């Protein structure tokens, strides 16, 4: 997997902050070079196509880097806007978000701590969940995770907590375990 650039908002200095694009370009260059090194151990036949792809990636990454260096101080209004999962949010010329319910972007601090804190926490909770299910098994981990994440999201009504947990667990049991006989992990503890 390519290493994602980990933007560090702490390193923000008043002038000449590396723009996200610069970090993106440089990380992609690093990823391509690393993978290119890996292809040295392959036979010429097996390596040819990946090398072609990596050279393409390298060229694109270099182009992004150069472009980022040429316009180092991006105007505040032109912060990179988050792309919706669909990808096709807006055509190149049209910078203004044209949807009725636009994501409140373009404000200061796309990479600020305040913005990144909740996604980072969410990710940590999810990683914890997966790590836990390897150890204690799918069902206990899912119950714990659902309770934890719901609580973290501000749900305090015990009826909702119980209802969601019971609903999800029952649904997964009925469909995945009984109908589709998916062998959900039982965990190392109870193997």
């Amino acid at each position, binding site marked *: *997997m*390519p290493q*994602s650039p980990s*933007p560090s908002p702490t390193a923000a200095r008043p002038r000449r902050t590396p723009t*996200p*694009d610069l*970090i*993106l370009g440089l990380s992609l260059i690093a990823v391509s070079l690393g993978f290119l090194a*890996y*292809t040295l151990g392959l036979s010429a*036949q*097996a*390596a040819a*196509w*990946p090398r072609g*792809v990596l050279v*393409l*990636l390298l060229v*694109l990454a270099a*182009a*992004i880097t150069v472009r980022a260096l040429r316009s180092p101080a991006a105007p505040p209004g032109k912060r*990179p*806007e*988050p*792309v*919706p*999962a*669909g*990808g*096709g949010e*807006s*055509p*190149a010329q049209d910078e203004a978000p044209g*949807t*009725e319910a*636009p994501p*409140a*972007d373009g404000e200061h601090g*796309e990479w600020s701590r305040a*913005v990144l804190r*909740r*996604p980072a926490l*969410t*990710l940590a909770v*999810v990683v914890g969940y*997966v790590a836990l*299910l390897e150890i204690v098994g799918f069902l206990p981990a*899912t119950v714990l*995770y*659902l309770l934890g*994440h*719901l609580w973290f*999201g501000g749900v305090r009504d015990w009826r*909702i907590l119980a209802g969601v947990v019971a609903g*999800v667990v029952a649904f997964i049991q009925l469909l*995945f375990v009984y109908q*589709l*006989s*998916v062998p959900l*992990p039982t965990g190392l503890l109870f193997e």
Partner: protein
Amino acid sequence: MDTTLLAEALGNLLTPQVLLAIVAGVVGGILIGALPGLSGTMGIALLVPVTFGMDPVAGIAMLTAIYAAATYGGSISAILINTPGTPAGAATALDGYQLTRQGKGAKALGVSALASTAGGLVSAFALLLLAPPLAQVSLAFSAPEYFLIAIFGLLIIGSLSAGSLLKGFVAGALGLLLATVGIDILTGYPRFTFGTTALQSGIQLVPALIGLFSLSQVLVLAEGRGTDRTGMAEGLRGRALPTLAELKRIGATILRSSGIGVFVGILPGAGGDIGSWVGYNEAKRFAKGPEKEEFGKGSIKGVAAAECANNAVTGGAMIPLLTLGIPGGSATAVILGGLLIHGLQPGGALFAESGGITYAIILGFLLANILMGIIAIAGARFFVRATRVPMSVLVPVIVALCVVGSFAVNNSLADVWVMLVAGAVGYVLRKVGVPPAPIVLGLILGAIAEKGLRQSVVMAQGDMIGYYLSRPLSVVLMALILLSLLAPVLARWLRKRIPEQEREKAAA
């Protein structure tokens, strides 16, 4: 097909057991398709043993009903929560989710249901009436053509890229790179596996897709910005059935996508995932003026194009299956197993000797598509309630389903980790403006492109260029690729020369 055969087929079809099997297949298929990670293939595979004891028409009709309905079902979660239930639903998410955000979720579901049904019906009729000649088309395709089709498909990235074309192509290249992970099928070398068994079979599409779309979406939502849901709530009251004017708008798109879908389906090795992207891209290419701008921002044409194409693939894929015994994908391969278990050998004999059964199965497939449309449109108003659930409840539930879904594909925890990494990386990439859709496209098409290119090296036995030029289909495809590469350049050049009022035509 003469009338006695038709009567026999209808007699086989219209029994309570068969009809019940088809209804069960449609309902189960929609559910399986809507859940991320569960594909129609899996549902079919696990039901094959169940069909042992059934009458062949009931058994096979149920399997094909699941196949069709699961392909549609993928669009429900794609539209409502931006989480495609199947790879074939990824293109639908582009516009479908935007519509939901605008409060038109029910409308998007209705359009998707209608388009899916239309695509499925066209493909069913193609299967019924044109199967033998169309099957011959599939044989003309081999490695060189697959390579060129994959390249053609990769050009779609140009139209998927928001903001920066450069970043779109970066995303595509990353997808191509991911596609090379795993044991190289032509030499047996493990590539980029870093010594793990889990990566030897490559990055699985479904976990990567769930991570890149669903989990990264969850992380975006977690930022807590732009969660204004008043618009969505209005969607609950909106009507699902498209108006006559809307039908008129999407009519041509549906016809075009049906054709594309059937064609893609006939090709072995290309499935609903590719069909929906090509359908989407062509719809955008043919759209004019403001409609073109609407793509990616909630165009019902986009939803119709993608959904119609992927359902048209289902009937198309059954053409080489029934006439030649060649399954085009994993779902049809499993259906082949089901046919064999019932003693039905695909081939000309299937139509000649057991025509009564075969045509009953095809008519059952037709019926399944109609039922699917009815259930889907009736259900749209219920499905859309998913968006009324508060985000704080919806997010944990989506995550749990993402985890169980990525696990269930191969019963592998490694796939769950792939999903997590894809989600985290996808989130960061989205924040720097690199869209996830081209990554998925690169992952799907990369393996086809590489395999096609390298197999054609073997097949050319020396002279590559001469070999490609000696194949008429290759030449046509190369011309198409050149044309679509040159089109934007040509359009820009024309725009400079042609007066203002002529612009729109040239751009289209």
